[in-house]
């Protein structure tokens, strides 16, 4: 049952977006967020929507996948919409019942917010759909490299991230084993009141922690044996190389963002 958890949301493929340099993908995602939040006019959304549709088509990620990433935030969407409907008031009253007023301004804002959040989620989840976790880690390490100058442990952080990624399946398997072992000894894990269930987790968490520490120690020894000595003087098998298409994608993103900013200044 625990094996069903998929790590990250990488959806393997070979589209243009998949093959893009992950560093550029991260930069483009940041630009996309700027694009969406540049202003409050309808044009912001139109530009953002065109960008998302374009990226979605290029990435060949099925729409079903995007729907999957939207599902968990549905409550937030509903909540935002209701709040905006109730609390934004102007003179143009559409409907009134006692103290509850729904105005044109409220409807406008809530629709605007919903569309913006939907675009934000579908657009930025394309980054994780088209980039494997390991490439993402590499890209983050490479982008944060300048921070080394202020003694920020960039390499160590990237190493921790990739080891965490490596051990997630191992620890899930281990949790499964411990759960079966405790069940075999009569532990009831899926019945009882809330507090009882939480208490029932303790005999699972403690062995899991103990074993994780033991693994960590063994892994550290194994890494030392293979001459690990931190990031200094380390080379990499996989080199991130930007291709012309990455620069083109970057320029397109810049143009979209610029358009969004300009439109918002002009139509204020």
């Amino acid at each position, binding site marked *: 049952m625990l094996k069903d958890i998929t790590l990250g949301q990488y959806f393997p493929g070979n589209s243009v977006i998949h093959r893009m340099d992950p560093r550029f993908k991260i930069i483009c995602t940041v630009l996309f967020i700027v694009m969406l939040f540049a202003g409050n006019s309808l044009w912001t959304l139109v530009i953002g929507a065109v960008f998302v549709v374009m990226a979605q088509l290029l990435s060949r990620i099925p729409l079903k996948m995007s729907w999957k990433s939207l599902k968990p935030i549905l409550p937030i969407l509903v909540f935002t919409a209701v709040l905006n409907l109730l609390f934004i008031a102007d003179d143009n009253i559409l409907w009134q019942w006692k103290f509850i007023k729904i105005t044109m301004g409220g409807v406008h804002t809530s629709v605007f917010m919903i569309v913006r959040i939907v675009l934000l989620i579908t657009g930025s989840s394309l980054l994780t759909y088209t980039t494997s*976790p*390991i490439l993402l880690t590499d890209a983050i390490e490479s982008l944060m490299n300048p921070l080394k100058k202020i003694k920020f442990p960039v390499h160590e952080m990237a190493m921790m991230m*990739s*080891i965490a*990624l*490596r051990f997630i*399946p*191992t620890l899930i*398997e281990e949790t499964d084993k411990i759960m079966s072992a405790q069940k075999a000894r009569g532990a009831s894990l899926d019945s009882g009141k809330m507090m009882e269930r939480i208490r029932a987790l303790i005999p699972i968490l403690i062995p899991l922690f103990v074993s994780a520490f033991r*693994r960590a120690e*063994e*892994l550290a*020894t*194994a*890494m*030392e*044996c*293979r*001459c*690990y*000595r931190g990031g200094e*003087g*380390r*080379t*990499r*098998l*996989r*080199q991130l190389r930007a291709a012309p298409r990455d620069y083109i994608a970057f320029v397109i993103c810049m143009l979209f963002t610029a358009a969004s900013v300009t439109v918002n200044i002009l139509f204020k």
Partner: protein
Amino acid sequence: MADMIEAKHLIFRYPADEPEDGKEAPVNEPILKDVSLSIEKGSFTAILGHNGSGKSTFAKHINAILLPEEGTMLVDGLDTKDEQNLFDIRQKAGMVFQNPDNQIVATIVEEDVAFAPENLGVEPQEIRRRVDEALKTVGMYEYRKHAPSQLSGGQKQRVAIAGVIAMQPDCIVLDEPTAMLDPQGRQEVLETIHRLNHEQGITIVLITHYMEEAAEADRVVVIDSGRVVLDDTPAKVFSQVDRMKSLGLDVPQVTELMWELRQAGYAVPDGIITEGECLTALEQLLLRSE
């Protein structure tokens, strides 16, 4: 031939736990009490011993993970006590551990094999060449893009071995590499290390619990409570069935069978450690009795 590993009078003890409320710090019993051992270049040595005999502790000295309290450990002539030799020694003497899960660092097989050369600062093209070669040597090249969690125990252990070969070591120390594997995985790993020994002349030090694995080595060293007690060819070591049993160790099944037959008064030859030899001996015995 020159010695790959030369241990001279090694003594080592693990530090005792911090004492409570100001009591005098206890001193642990040394786990290695005077171990001297030289291992020739290109040889295949098996080290036997029951749990807590000090065999794993000895293995960790070869790689400078542990430093001796007294005595010296030379790896290819380099003293492990000298800080400056540390990475040279670790590059020359690679180490493979029992649990393959706890020694694989990366999320992709080829990335993991590349880990050691990356640490050594090897050029990317050269890393690529070494990774491909190492994976081909252990027969895992087709799996280079797989995640380690998709592999079987034997396959993971072969990846771990490839990760060590990619350093281009002169010697590989394996600490019970097959203890957590199923019979097929064991077979795969053993074939791989024998091939490395024969084809590339890499010195192998195999620490094991399985007598059948030790029987295929050039030399068997038995360590008991921190001392080398037996050190000879497998045939000679295993022919001392009583001695082995008193040390809490077994002998290969075929040796045991021969020993039982001899106890029962049958004339069978001494020093039989492989199934082939056993078969011939039984055949002769049967022919004679006809």
